[in-house]
């Protein structure tokens, strides 16, 4: 979330934010109350993984699992800076040590295994720590007979982990394959943005796939496609609604209704 503008009125200082959708100024606290959805145009602001968990699960029900699995640097990768320094710094400052939070909790009283990708950690990219945490969550859900819910927000593969990152797509697909045979219901929730190796593996393998309203979802990014084809893309290209009309997601849901829609599905389970 960017650009928090401080506006000083007569006696008080209030925080305002400009909507990325309709450009209106919004009162920040009201926006938070509205689950970070613009009350005027319905624009969905991006959530942190922690906010997502808060909005989805029953208050206080979340129990984090596999927190001890942390990003490593398999290639000793260096671009503008060493990757090792980058992950160490994020860990020190933000407390995150991978791009996913995994655990279990309840949704309107129903136990679920939940994985939420953290876009705020290197763009929610698919590194080996995420691969391992999510794999363990999948098998945890099988062992404990829990529905599996994964909320994606990811730019795709973690380039700094090279081929190891690519192989996480295979690893997670193998795990999901086992869940399909021995598990309950896997609900994949696609939020803005979900791209690349994340989309082309576990995110598109849900028994049920729900896209959050207006989310951008695809494999190749729009810029890459425009550069390759030299054509301007349609306005709704790669939106949640576009995926729905092309038959690749089961439903598009507004953030306010997400918990309720998931609850309905979970309650249908035998």
């Amino acid at each position, binding site marked *: 979330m960017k650009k928090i503008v401080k506006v000083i009125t007569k006696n008080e200082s209030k925080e305002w934010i400009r909507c990325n959708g309709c450009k209106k100024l919004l009162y920040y606290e009201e926006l938070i109350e509205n689950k970070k959805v613009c009350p005027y145009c319905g624009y969905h602001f991006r959530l942190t993984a922690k906010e997502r968990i808060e909005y989805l699960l029953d208050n206080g029900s979340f129990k984090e699992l596999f927190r001890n699995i942390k990003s490593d640097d398999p290639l000793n990768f260096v671009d503008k800076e060493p990757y090792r320094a980058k992950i160490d710094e994020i860990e020190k400052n933000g407390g995150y040590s991978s791009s996913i939070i995994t655990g279990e909790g309840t949704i309107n009283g129903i136990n679920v295994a939940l994985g939420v990708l953290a876009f705020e950690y290197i763009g929610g990219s698919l590194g080996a720590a995420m691969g391992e945490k999510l794999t363990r969550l999948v098998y945890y859900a099988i062992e404990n007979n829990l529905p599996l819910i994964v909320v994606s927000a990811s730019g795709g593969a973690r380039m700094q982990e090279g081929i190891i990152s690519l192989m996480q797509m295979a690893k997670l697909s193998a795990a999901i394959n086992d869940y399909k045979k021995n598990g309950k219901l896997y609900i994949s929730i696609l939020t803005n943005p979900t791209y690349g190796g994340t989309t082309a593996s576990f995110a598109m393998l849900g028994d049920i796939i729900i896209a959050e309203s207006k989310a951008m979802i695809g*494999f190749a990014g729009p810029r890459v496609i425009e550069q390759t084809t030299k054509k301007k893309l349609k306005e709704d290209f790669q939106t949640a609604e576009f995926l729905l009309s092309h038959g690749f997601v089961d439903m598009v849901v507004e953030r306010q209704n997400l918990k309720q829609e998931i609850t309905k599905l979970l309650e249908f389970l035998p």
Partner: protein
Amino acid sequence: MNTKFLPFEKDLEKIYLAMERNPKDLSLKESFNKTLKEIYSKLEPFDIVEIARHPERPHSEDYIQSLFTDFVEIHGDRCFGDDPSIITGIGKFNGKVVGVLGHRKGQNLKEQLSVNFGMANPEGYRKALRVAKLISEKFKAPIISFLDTPGANPTEGAEERGIASAIATNLMEFFNIRTPIIVVVIGEGGSGGALGIGIGDRILMLKYSIYSVISPEGCASILFGNASKSKEAAKSLKLTAQDLKALNVIDEIIEEPYGGAHRFKEETIKNVGDALEKNLIELVKIPTETLLHMRKEKFLKMGVYREE
């Protein structure tokens, strides 16, 4: 010897031109071979990227032509169309029935254009899965998959028809194919587009091929902020066969003569054939349930992370 010289082969090209002018000077030929060996024994990762992309490098079609007899090509995904960028079929390898999958890059510019330089569409991946199932279920035959693509097709059409969904489905469903699968990276193993037909029991890689999550150019422009840093990016990405073997991602490196497969097609194809034969003999002995379990475990254990 007459081939397109790569940027790091300048010295070789000079000698070659001298040989053209003085065909009787035998010392030049000697000097050519010596220089070739020198250059190829100290290649940088980006040099290998260029060899892997050499237009005259043998492609899936060449391996199929040379290694398989009675090859029957199978077309179409029974959904939308037939993607020529992925070739699928069935034939005989050393007298035994095998199924074949592979990216098709094309032998000349016209063909390259018609197969979109090996960048496959969703229907290509769906065809590959359909044929893999057919081969394993009806013919009970093992499958050989040749990887050689810059990546999946990045176009509006590919997205509309669900390229992500097609690749994801393959990644999952190939774990259920009940006959052995050998994957051979013969040129460019370009990201998800390669992995989409890259799940197998053995992953072999030619010495001068690459396998990477992103092209060095793409990585340079995103992470280094400058597309001209491709050489640095190629080094950082650890995309050579040697790197991947060290990382335990591949099982075996297939030898390729100094000078590369584009200069020594027959020898390279023979090396691939030998490696396939050796691995097939091992794999067909493994009981099906064990095979499937091992395939899954192979990929489940891929990953480097800290556990504290």
